[in-house]
């Protein structure tokens, strides 16, 4: 499980762990709690080219549907098959086993720090 304080965030309640030119992406515990129990996750195919801000997947709970936005321009390296098989991982471990996709990128857009994101959800 990643240290939440070292992660970067988007206003769409996603977290990004940057390792070299690979970004691991998931949704925050705040977003998972707001969705409720996740029952279906649809992720982009490995190899697909994504643009920052574009909707690339869905996270569906019993009561609503959340969209997965690509936080960076890049190519999908990996999609987490474990959450597709067991969507409850998004609720039980959103910052760890509940990660969603890994994307290779060449440039990072402006992202939020932990403090900035914490301030956003505290509003």
């Amino acid at each position, binding site marked *: 499980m990643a240290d939440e304080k070292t992660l970067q965030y988007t206003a769409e309640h996603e977290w990004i762990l940057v390792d070299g030119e690979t970004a691991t992406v998931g949704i925050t515990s705040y977003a998972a*709690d*707001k969705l*409720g*129990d996740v*029952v*279906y996750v*649809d992720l982009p195919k490995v190899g697909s080219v994504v643009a920052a801000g574009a909707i690339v997947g*869905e996270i*569906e*709970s*019993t*009561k609503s*549907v959340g969209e997965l936005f690509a936080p960076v321009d890049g190519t999908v390296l990996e999609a987490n098959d474990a959450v597709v098989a067991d969507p409850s991982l998004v*609720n039980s471990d959103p910052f760890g086993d509940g990660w969603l996709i890994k994307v290779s990128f060449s440039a990072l857009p402006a992202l939020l720090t932990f403090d900035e994101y914490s301030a956003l*959800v*505290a*509003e």
Partner: protein
Amino acid sequence: MTDLSATDRFSPLHQIHVDGGASFTDFAGWQMPVSYGSDLAEHHAVRTAAGIFDISHMAEIQVIGPDAAAFLDFALAGKISAVKPMQAKYSLLLTPEGGIIDDLVVYANGTDEYLVVANAGNRFAVVPALVERADGFDVQVNDLSDDISLIAVQGPSSRAILEATAGLGILEGQTPLDELKYYWSTAATFAGSNVFIGRTGYTGEDGFELYVDVADAAALWNALSAAGAAHGLVPAGLASRDTLRLEAGMPLYGHELGLDTFPAQAGLGRVVALAKEGDFVGRAASEAGPAVGARVLVGLTTEGRRAGRAGYPVFDGESEVGVVTSGALSPTLGFPIAMAYVDPAAATSTSLTIDVRGTRIPASVVALPFYKREAK
């Protein structure tokens, strides 16, 4: 974050929910628990053991006076005068045009006293409509919503839990819980104050709804919870309440019911007592019925895990023939279920699809309810 406004209302049980880790949602201006952690776990608990719900936002309206029964026969769609003392009845408040102002449960406390329970969001439509219709009847319409809390205990273990609840006792001469039939009520005391108990609910399970003075609501909730611990009782929020009622095929006002909906379209034609004597509001329109070709409510099931949701269009081939009003992946059944209004011809079609965010998913029309508890 939820924006709280000065007009937000809080249940008398709010602090208990905060302490219980609930997340909240706005419902008709009330901040009510949406779940206490896992709505799926709460749903399954109600199907297999029991759940306790705070539904204090519901509106309770007392109708009292010598003409109470005759008045309700005129004001509501059902024949309330035929409801026996301590019996309950599901009914509708119609517009003169035959549309639905609200769906209600009416409890007969006697032949001249009734309790009308309305949806929270419709309180300020129902009360004025009843007051207006009371003109010429010797009856009083009293909005008791601010004085009464409502706690529902639902699930196969609910009777055992009520019977084990410390301080809750059925009044002398009133029906004990083991003899109380579905849609009947009884009277009890708790800590010296009166509790009115209906064997009613909105989950498709056996269960009870307890009407209690707001001052005693927290103590009653805690006593029920303490008694329920040994029976698998969990606090349950509005998210599970919604999936439970959907599985049970029960309509939700604002989704399956509205001012532009005729009861017959919603499969509630039997609730409109056209055979009763005398006029009632909405009678002429109900006798004429909805327009030819008006859409009808159907149950739909789909494969996979992606649910059709409220507002999603329904297609028959390439023609748009309807719209989903409620839908979810059924926690009990394991596949998606939905209620939808469709053109009459589509109600027997075998080639329907739901447009789930751009993907057409084949849907089968099924009889409601989707889930029915096993008869004892």
